[in-house]
């Protein structure tokens, strides 16, 4: 039995009075690509933010790398964070810094590498996401899809053990989206990354997913491997895999 690398138990999350996640339990296994699915507004982003302590869960437990993080002190949690790369749904690049500087932040802050090495690493990562030419531009000078790719470059700058992507391919053309999938598979195979992806693209799910977690109205409706998901008889899951739509 493989130990899960992230394990969520009975997580409850609320915004004010509105309960968004209701007793969610799930496991993410190492060196796998887990896809989180669910209709818009069902709480996928909320789930990720609660796992990463950007919001305080109302109750429940979150274990990352076998350590309970919900009550962990700041310093210890930082050391866990340095093993996690996160791609936000809207990129969240620092608007006052160039793309190059944005990608450099984690490298400068968490390593003692020399500037020349760092510059090389940044250029390689930007090359990987097909953004070699824009390193000196500001985020406001990029298109939506380019911002997202730059943010991905920042998320993988440190070669994290765990990569979490909130809708990486939304807003990308099919070609770029396919090359992004290739990149994600490469990261998994080369660096043994554990990858969690929120996405709705059926094609992309078929290409990369090992495991599926299906959220609906704040609950986990289905959780299992891609093969199990394709054969699932749960109506919502079945519909999604048949037509690629929710509900």
């Amino acid at each position, binding site marked *: 039995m493989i130990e899960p690398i992230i394990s969520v138990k009975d997580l409850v999350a609320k915004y004010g009075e509105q309960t968004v996640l209701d007793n969610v339990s799930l496991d993410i296994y190492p060196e796998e690509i887990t896809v989180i699915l669910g209709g818009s507004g069902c709480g996928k982003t909320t789930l990720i*933010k609660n796992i*990463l302590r*950007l919001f305080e869960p109302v109750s429940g437990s979150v274990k990352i790398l076998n350590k309970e993080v919900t009550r962990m002190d700041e310093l210890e949690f*930082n*050391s866990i*964070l*340095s093993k*996690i*790369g*996160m791609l*936000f749904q*809207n990129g*969240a*690049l*620092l*608007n006052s810094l160039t793309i190059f500087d944005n990608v450099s*932040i*984690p490298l*400068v*802050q*968490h390593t003692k590498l020399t500037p020349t090495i760092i510059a090389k690493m940044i250029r390689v990562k930007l090359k990987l996401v097909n953004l070699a030419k824009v390193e000196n531009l500001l985020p406001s000078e990029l298109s939506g899809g380019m911002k997202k790719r730059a943010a991905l470059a*920042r998320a993988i700058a440190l070669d994290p053990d765990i990569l979490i992507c909130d809708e990486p391919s939304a807003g990308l053309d099919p070609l770029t989206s396919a090359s992004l999938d290739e990149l994600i598979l490469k990261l998994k195979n080369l660096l043994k990354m554990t990858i969690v992806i929120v996405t709705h693209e059926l094609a992309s799910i078929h290409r990369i997913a090992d495991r599926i977690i299906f959220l609906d109205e704040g609950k986990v409706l289905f959780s299992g491997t891609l093969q199990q998901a394709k054969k699932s008889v749960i109506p919502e899951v079945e519909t999604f895999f048949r037509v690629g739509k929710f509900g």
Partner: protein
Amino acid sequence: MKYENQTLFLDGKLTKFTVPDLLHELSQYKGKKISTIDLSEVSSIDSAGVAFLDELVLNLHKFKPQLANMNEIVESAVSTFTSLSLKKPVPGRKDNFFILIGEGLLRWRDSTRDAIYLIADIFYWSFVGLFNRKGQRQGSIIQQSLIIGVDAVGIIALLSFILGLILALQSAAQLRQFGANIFVADLMAISMVTEMGPILTAIILAGRSGSSIASEIATMKVTEEIDALRMMAINPIRYIVVPKFLAITICIPLLVTMSTLVGILGGLIVAVTYLDLSAVVFFNRVFEILTMRDALIGLGKSFFFAWVIVIIGSYYGFNVKGGAEGVGKVTTQAVVASIFWVIILDALNSLIFYFKT
């Protein structure tokens, strides 16, 4: 529109352009029993037309009117745009007076606690930041000093000079009557050093830097940049606030000193041109009347003003709610609150050091 046999016949277009006239036309059938609404002659319909039908059905609910003879397009438009199946919005909870007071107090307690945490964090990390630049961007203190300090030199100098002129002119008219011309030097020295220099600088900084700190942090918060920093294990206070805090701490004594000197210079011009004093006499008097204590109190309190501006700017910035509108709101609040607290601190300072019984 026709009425026959308890049936209302609608025809032609049922769109946002025709609905106003239809409503008008309809009033002649008021009170008539309508049990069927015939739509066979309707050629086109949009969401306004459907809303009109909904309204009609609701108003005639006692006759339970039916829509009849719809063609395919009309039928699908009706089923897409109808509001009859929507749930009524639940009216918001009305709280009574005591609940409102209670919630207000709880909010006040929470925000006080947050503010104290923030102040502790800022001081702690700024102290650490003096010795350890990790968690900050290289050169950010210098960059911030340029933005907060150097860029403000012009406007502070200009306003201080004008204020000095005004103060001296206003009092010169009075002093001349008593032949007490030389006292303009006393007045300028003491008022600029203990009060006008520090407070003028602080108010300009609150307007310039307080607003920019609040809006910068608030924008970063709504665009999730703060979350992104957290995810890279970077403390946002250390990364964003500390450089500003250290920069303003370096700049404020210099700015206040400059403001004071320029203000006194304004006074000198009035003294020389209007009160027939010589510059030497004026300066001798200035240095005679000033004490070290006054100068130190003036500079000392300006540090507190500067810190209040940064702390309040970041407090409001981090507590932004909503999008672009929220950013505008907290920026205004931050400027108002920091000017308010600067003046309160100034009043406290006067009570502590100058109140003699």
